[in-house]
């Protein structure tokens, strides 16, 4: 059964994608960049303390990837619905 014929299935699939991406969004910024920043700073990435790098670079890069993956994923979800 395609998602196009069943809007509920399409919506549920969308919510699943949302919760996965949201969990990554939260971890990359609030966990790695704020809550665990001090323990992470014990490690280093080149010349960066790791927690500091996540807070000022890594989190932003993760955000870009998340939004890209979401756009791509939803395109596929919509196409699958239309194909049938």
């Amino acid at each position: 059964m395609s998602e196009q014929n069943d809007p509920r299935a399409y919506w549920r699939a969308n919510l699943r994608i949302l919760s996965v991406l949201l969990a990554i969004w939260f971890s990359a910024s609030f966990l790695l960049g704020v809550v665990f920043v001090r323990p992470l700073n014990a490690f280093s990435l080149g010349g960066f303390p790791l927690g500091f790098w996540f807070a000022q670079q890594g989190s932003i890069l993760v955000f870009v990837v998340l939004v890209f993956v979401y756009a791509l994923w939803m395109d596929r979800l919509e196409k699958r619905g239309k194909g049938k």
Partner: protein
Amino acid sequence: MSIQGWTYLIVAVTFALYIGIAVWSRVRTTAGFYVAGQGVPAIANGMATGADWMSAASFISMAGLISFMGYDGSMYLMGWTGGYVLLALFLAPYLRKYGKFTVPEFVGDRYYSQTARVVAVVCAIFVSFTYVAGQMRGVGVVFSRFLEVDIDTGVYIGVGMVFVYATIGGMRGITYTQVAQYCVLIVAYLIPAVAISFKMTGNPIPQLGFGSVVTEGEHAGVFLLEAIDQIHRDLGLPEYTGAFIEGKREMIDIFAITLALMVGTAGLPHVLIRFYTVRSARMARWSVMWALVFIALLYTTAPAVAAFARVNLIQTLHERPYAEAPTWFQNWETTGLIRFEDKNGDGLMQYGEDPDTRELEIDRDIMVLANPEIAELPAWVVALVAAGGLAAALSTAAGLLLVISSSISHDLFKSIFRPQMSEGEELTLARVAAGGAVVVAGYFGVNPPDYVAAVVAFAFGLAAASFFPVLVLGVFSKRVTKEGAIAGMVLGIAFTAAYISYFKLAKLGGAEDWWFGISPEGIGSVGMLLNFAVTLTVSRFTPPPPPEVQALVEEIRLPSREE
């Protein structure tokens, strides 16, 4: 040619370009004026959103702020980019799918209530005006520093510019002007950053350079960030990369502020409205992606600029004789942005934490503006930075003015006072409203309210505590009712506004009185949670929305049907 000659030339050329684009893309319909005919390509909308979003504050002040705050500055970096993830996931595609002209219009339809729409309009206008006053001031400041006119004259020139291209071109004119402005501002930001990165570390990519080894000066052979931490320890300042230590913000405060800025970003009307201008919900998702790419380019460069500036500044000034100060220091001393007072009479400049013995006072704005001079770059680069600052301020001002104009002409007059108005009349009214808003913004630029700093916290706090929960629940719940939404918005705003006013305007308490250690800048995140809780609770005890509203929500959730 001198710096001033170059500045006149580059500013004149870019202004002619902006006006040219506005005339080329002038509009004759309300759809063109409000949402650019909904035909903007995703990548162009991404660039326009980038220029719209990155204001004079992002361009001029942010790197300087981070330079003084170190790790604490991360809350701006994460807060002002992470909001785009929320936009993509929760709002942009659905608002586009709904497909009318304004954010208050969606609130009014989804919550089947003119009251809800009016509350939303008032929020939109208030948030946008507080923002735009700062932009006009920014235009004035840039003009006064680089062209040596006074700040007020600079504001009048800025008002004239925006007046012409916002009233002729509407959203279409603004959008394509913003594309050009993005290009100007990003080039102006990157050139000095790349040059400085290469000079200090041998790595031309600033994002990597500030994690590299310093190649010149007294810290040669040490990682740049380690060198800064060492300098800070020597001066008795908290470590640059250190978090939650003495002299820095608490973890809960950083958490709350980051969240408030993210949610506030996703709730700002001038950002939301940009995603009405593309062809479909699918294009809305892709244009958020492009917007974030273009924004991230500047936002990942800013912390590098901040770190380079920190080392440069202290290394070239601290404990050096005033008589041998570099020429850029003398140039900027005349603007009052950097000041030296020889308190101990030894002829040397001392920098440090204690304001009683510190002899250098450095304004944070100088970090970006003086950067090209510190790095000894040619005069045309200095001029380009001036043009970049103007592009950032003008593009944001124009986007905000359009929100004010459409709120007045479309949400107030067309829907409430004069529904029988023809399209031609509405378009004329929209232009008049845009023109009027520019003049009011110019007035605030010349006579800035003295609570400007508090006002920024207000704009984000309000957007976070009012729009975001109501918009998200409007799409993701069919059960949320108008009573719930109105109660949530009003309580969320009232709580946030009261907290900020108590500490920032009335100044009735200090940091020790903050609830749970959350500063007024971060309280919007508590206001948002309160709004969610109230909206959901009240909705449970009020009758469900009518069937046609539930059908509207169903329809918005369906995949877009383009082609």
